[in-house]
């Protein structure tokens, strides 16, 4: 695959509460930044895809709030995806590959500040069997973390190391929400949220928007700073938590295999230079190492013990600080992709990893990482 490139990215700062901004204001900011980054104007955009969620936004047809802010108001052909931004970027890419459009602008937004996180995530669960028990994003993650630790002997310390690493990385990312150095003790002694999850194992509630511009063929070749799409895959697992072994990320394995096959990657640890993965919780990053094939199944804890994924390690993971330092749901994976693009270009500023040729970005959707999307981008 060498005819599709990401030619522009833009993101707002991630904040706890962007009270002065409506959804449209945030999307307009991200869109303008992406256009500027690509050296394009809205006239260069052939079609638009928004990414939002009606529950998070508190409105049915949540895409309607941002149409003017991303060019739909100009009568661009458009579509709207509900889920993580990595999935909408995939759809944006296929719309180019179909031969109908030369470029796609893909935007995503969320304002976690406007709703009740636990009620919204409770509504992800089945209304008859799971919702009445009170499942939400936190306690379902705690169940998964417990199962993962039990099955593979991963420790709370190993999980905490992810939080320490990502918080440290975030200090150098101007867009990050939480810029605070935390020690292993800070994480382990932080307030218990849902056993064994502690406060610093969890990502915060956030507001942000992101925009990505994708181009094909000649339009990509003419771009100022094209970053080429080498491979993409996505896949969904079972819905009911009891139908899955929560310690294993089979759908991620499948999505990554597809992306690696397209990108002709056989040894991800050797061939990928940097990865931005969906660390909604500290333990998740370790699980995703395994699903992405950075280490054998069950060895995520050992990988971080060896320092492999630190900024100066063999395969730095989340140099941006990841979601633990700012977690705009829906937007989360798209920011991972934008960060991967910046890394390949060498434009990541203070959190730039040296000599990046190939970068990986990862997004998830559904409870406990039910669905995964994996992108490989490179020079």
């Amino acid at each position, binding site marked *: 695959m060498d005819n599709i490139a990401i030619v522009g990215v833009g993101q707002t700062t991630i904040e706890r509460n962007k009270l002065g901004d*409506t959804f449209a*204001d945030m999307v*307009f900011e991200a869109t303008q930044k992406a256009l500027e980054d690509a050296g394009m104007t809205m006239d260069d955009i052939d079609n638009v895809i928004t990414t939002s969620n009606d529950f998070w936004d508190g409105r049915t047809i949540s895409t309607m709030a941002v149409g*003017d802010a991303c060019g739909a108001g100009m009568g661009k052909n458009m579509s709207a995806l509900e889920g993580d931004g990595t999935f909408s970027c995939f759809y944006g890419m296929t719309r180019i590959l179909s031969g109908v459009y030369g470029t796609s602008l893909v935007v995503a937004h969320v304002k976690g500040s*406007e*709703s*009740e996180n636990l*009620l919204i995530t409770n*509504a992800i669960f089945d209304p008859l069997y799971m919702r009445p028990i009170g499942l939400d994003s936190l306690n379902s993650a705690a169940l998964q973390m417990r199962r993962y630790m039990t099955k593979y002997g991963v420790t709370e310390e190993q999980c905490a190391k992810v939080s320490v690493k990502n918080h440290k990385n975030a200090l150098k990312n101007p867009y990050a929400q939480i810029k605070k150095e935390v020690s292993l003790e800070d994480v382990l002694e932080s307030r218990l949220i849902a056993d064994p999850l502690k406060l610093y194992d969890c990502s915060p509630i956030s507001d942000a928007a992101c925009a990505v511009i994708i181009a094909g063929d000649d339009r990509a070749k003419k771009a100022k700073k094209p970053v080429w799409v080498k491979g993409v895959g996505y896949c969904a697992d079972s819905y009911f938590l009891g139908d899955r072994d929560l310690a294993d990320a089979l759908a991620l394995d499948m999505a990554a295999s597809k992306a690696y096959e397209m990108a002709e990657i056989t040894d991800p640890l050797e061939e990928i230079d940097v990865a931005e993965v969906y660390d909604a919780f500290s333990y998740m990053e370790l699980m995703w190492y395994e699903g992405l094939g950075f280490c054998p199944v069950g060895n995520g804890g050992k990988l971080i013990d060896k320092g492999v994924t630190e900024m100066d390690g063999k395969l730095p993971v989340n140099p941006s600080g990841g979601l633990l330092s700012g977690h705009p749901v829906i937007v989360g994976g798209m920011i991972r992709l934008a960060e991967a693009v910046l890394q390949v270009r060498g434009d990541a500023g203070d959190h730039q990893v040296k000599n990046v040729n190939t970068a990986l970005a990862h997004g998830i959707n559904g409870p406990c990482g039910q669905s995964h999307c994996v992108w490989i981008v490179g020079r």
Partner: protein
Amino acid sequence: MHSGEGEQPFHYAIGRYGSKFLSEIRDNKQFYGIKCPKCGKVYVPPREVCGPCFTKMTEWVKVADEGKLYSYTILRFAFLDPETGKQKPVPYGYAFITLDGADTAFQHFVEITDESKVKVGARVKAIFEDKRYGKITDIKHFVIID
């Protein structure tokens, strides 16, 4: 078998543009629109972007508290108001009003005691509440003035 009922609370941000609009209604009973530097269209309610031009708007323009009915309907069927969870009181007049000086329609109630006067093109005027809180309901409704 039914599964039960649900509700979700939200704290919608109105943003900088909407805040200015509602503050002016509250403090001065003054309507404001915003003008596109490119096409010249005056939008009420105000917002940051002119959709058709994809252009940021910054020029605030005073518009009248009078205008004409662009279109309307009279709601007669009972339905649940999602903002309150209760039945919305019907009948009521639902109006699209083009305020003098504005190019888009502003939506609000139009008073319907004499239905024969409610017509497309009719002149209307805003009636404000005495106590105003910076909410859209600071405007009580519009009345037909001709």
